C-alpha cells in the first residue's frame, strides 16, 4: 500500500506526507475499535440514562429527562453504595501503599532469594478475582473450618463473623482486596528504591540522621513520584472492583458490602432496569473522571 519509490524519498515534504499517512494507517484499526467499542457505548450510556428502559416491561419505556437522576439523589441505597465505595477505595489504597512501602523498605538492599519471593507475591495478582473471592468465602473465612477462622480460634481470639456481620464483612472484603494487590505496591516501591542514587543516602548517613529521618526527609521525597503513581493506579482499579466482592459476599449481608459497581449491576441485570442502571453507571463515570482529573493535576504540580 505504501510503495514509496526512490524519488519520493528524496523529496522531504512527500516523505513527511508518507510518514503521516503511514502513521494514520497504523493507528486506524485500534482507534476505530476504541471508538466503536468504548467511546460510542459511553455516549450511549449517558443517553440511556435519560430513559426508562425496563426489559421486563418494554411497553412502558419512555423519555424521562433527568428524572432518573432526581430519583438517584433520593435513593438511600445509592447513597449507601456511594459511602461503601468511598470507604472501600480509600482504605484499600491506603493499606496497600503503607504495607507495600513498609515491606519494600524492609527488603531494600538486603535482598536474597528474590526469585522465590517474587513468585510468591506475584501469585495473588494473576489469580482470577472470582476464584479469590470464592476461596476466601469458603476455605478461608468459613466459621471453624476456614483456615483463617481456625487460626483465630487456636490463637485464642475465638471464631469471628468474617462475612456475616455487616462491619466484619466490609472489613473482610477490604482485607481480601488488600491481600490480592499489596504485592503490586511492594514490587513498584522495591523497583524504585533499588533504582535510587546512593549519594544522598550516604550524605544523610554522614550527617548522623537516624533511620526515620533518612526515610522521611531523604528517601520519601525521592520516591514520591512512584507513590503518586501507585495511588493513581490502585484507586482506578479499586473503583473497578467487582468479582471478588460479588463472589465473597454478593454485596451482603444485606447491602453492607454493596459498592456502586454491585448496585449498578443488580439494578441493570437483576432488576433489568437498564435506564436507572445507566444513570448509576453515568454517576460512576463522572466520579472516575473527576478523580482522574484531580490526580492529573496532582502529577502536573509535581506533588
Amino acid at each position, binding site marked *: 500500500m505504501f510503495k514509496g519509490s526512490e524519488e519520493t524519498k528524496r523529496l522531504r515534504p512527500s516523505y513527511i506526507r508518507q*510518514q503521516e499517512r503511514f502513521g494514520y494507517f497504523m493507528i486506524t484499526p485500534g482507534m476505530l*475499535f476504541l471508538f466503536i467499542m468504548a467511546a460510542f457505548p459511553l455516549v450511549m450510556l449517558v443517553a440511556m440514562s435519560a430513559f426508562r428502559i425496563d426489559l421486563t416491561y418494554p411497553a412502558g419505556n419512555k423519555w424521562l429527562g433527568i428524572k432518573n437522576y432526581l430519583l438517584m439523589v433520593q435513593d438511600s441505597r445509592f447513597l449507601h453504595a456511594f459511602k461503601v465505595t468511598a470507604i472501600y477505595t480509600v482504605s484499600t489504597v491506603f493499606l496497600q501503599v503503607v504495607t507495600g512501602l513498609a515491606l519494600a523498605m*524492609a527488603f531494600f538492599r538486603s535482598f536474597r532469594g528474590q526469585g522465590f519471593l517474587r513468585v510468591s507475591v506475584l501469585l*495473588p495478582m*494473576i489469580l482470577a478475582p472470582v476464584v479469590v473471592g470464592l476461596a476466601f468465602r469458603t476455605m478461608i473465612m468459613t466459621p471453624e473450618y476456614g483456615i483463617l477462622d481456625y487460626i483465630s480460634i487456636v490463637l485464642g481470639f475465638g471464631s469471628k463473623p468474617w462475612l456475616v456481620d455487616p462491619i466484619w464483612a466490609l472489613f473482610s472484603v477490604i482485607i481480601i482486596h488488600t491481600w490480592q494487590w499489596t504485592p503490586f505496591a511492594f514490587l513498584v516501591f522495591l523497583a524504585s528504591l533499588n533504582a535510587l542514587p546512593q549519594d544522598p543516602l550516604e550524605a544523610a548517613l554522614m550527617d548522623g540522621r537516624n533511620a526515620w529521618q533518612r526515610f522521611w526527609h531523604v528517601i520519601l521525597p525521592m520516591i514520591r*513520584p*512512584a507513590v503518586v503513581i501507585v495511588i493513581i493506579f490502585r484507586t*482506578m482499579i479499586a473503583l473497578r472492583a467487582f*468479582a471478588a466482592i460479588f463472589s465473597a459476599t454478593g454485596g451482603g449481608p444485606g447491602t453492607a458490602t454493596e459498592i456502586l459497581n454491585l448496585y449498578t449491576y443488580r439494578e441493570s441485570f437483576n432488576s433489568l432496569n437498564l435506564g436507572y442502571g445507566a444513570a448509576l453507571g453515568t454517576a460512576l463515570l463522572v466520579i472516575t473522571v473527576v478523580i482522574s482529573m484531580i490526580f492529573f493535576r496532582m502529577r502536573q504540580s509535581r506533588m
Partner: protein
Amino acid sequence: MADRKMPLWLRGLRSGLVLSLYGLMILIWAFPVIWVILTSLKTRTDIFTLPPTILFKPTVEHYIEALLAQDILRGIINSLLVACGTTLFTLLIAVPAGYAFSRIRFPFRDRLSFLALLAQMAPPIGLIIPCFLILSRLRMLDTYGGLIAVHMTLTVPFSIWLMITYFQDLPPSLEEAATVDGASPFTTFRKVVLPNVWGGVGVTAIFAFIESWNEFLYAVVLTGSKTKTAPVAIFGFLAAEESRWGPFTATGVMIMAPVIMVALVAQRQIVKGMTMGATKG
C-alpha cells in the same frame, strides 16, 4: 553501606528480622494458593477434619467430578478460545498503534494517544450496560465474537501503552538504514522493527491473556449456556451447593494452573512489565 557501621549483634538481629519477615510474606501471599491446591487433593473427610491435615493421602476424585460436571470442562475450553482470540486480535491492532504512537510523526499524535489511554478509565459496569443492549440487538449475546470484542476494550488500551514503552526503548536510528535502502515503512516495521520487540509483544500477550482468562463481569452478563467461561462456571458451581469445596478447589486449580505456569516461566518479564510504567512515570 549502613550495615558496615552497625555492631555485629545488631546486624545479626536485623538479618534475623528480615528473614522472618521474608517467611511471613511468603506464608501470607503464597499460602492461600497452596491451601487451595492441597484442599483439591484431599478426600471430603480430610477437607472437613479439624485440626486441618497437612499430610494426607492425595486423591484426584474432585478433578474427575469437576471435569464430568458438564459446565466446567466446557467453561475451560470456552475460556481458552475467548482468551486466545482476545490476545490475538488485541496484538493485531495494538502493536501497530503502539508503533505509530511512539516512532512516527503525524498531526494530533499525542492527543490521539492520550485518547487511547483514556479508554482504560471507563468504568466496566458503565460500558457493559450499553454493550449488552447493542449486542442483544445484533443477536450477539452468548457468542464468542461478542465476548471477545468486549474483552478487547480491557486489553487494547493497556497493550497500546505497554507497546509504546517497548518501542521507545529501541535506538532511534533503527529504521534509518532500512529507509535509505528504499524499503517501505510497513516493510521496515515488519522486517526491521518487529524482530526487536518480540519480547515486549510476548509480555503484552501474557497480560492480555491473563486479563481475558480471569475476567468475570462481562462474561457473566454476556454469556449463556453456550459460551459460559470458566470463572462464570465455577461461580455457578458453589452457588448450587456451598460445601462442595473439593470440586470447587479442583476447578480453581485448573483455572489457576495456566497463569501460574506462565508466571513461573516469565516472572522476571511480568514484574518488569507491571512496574515499568510506574517507575518510568
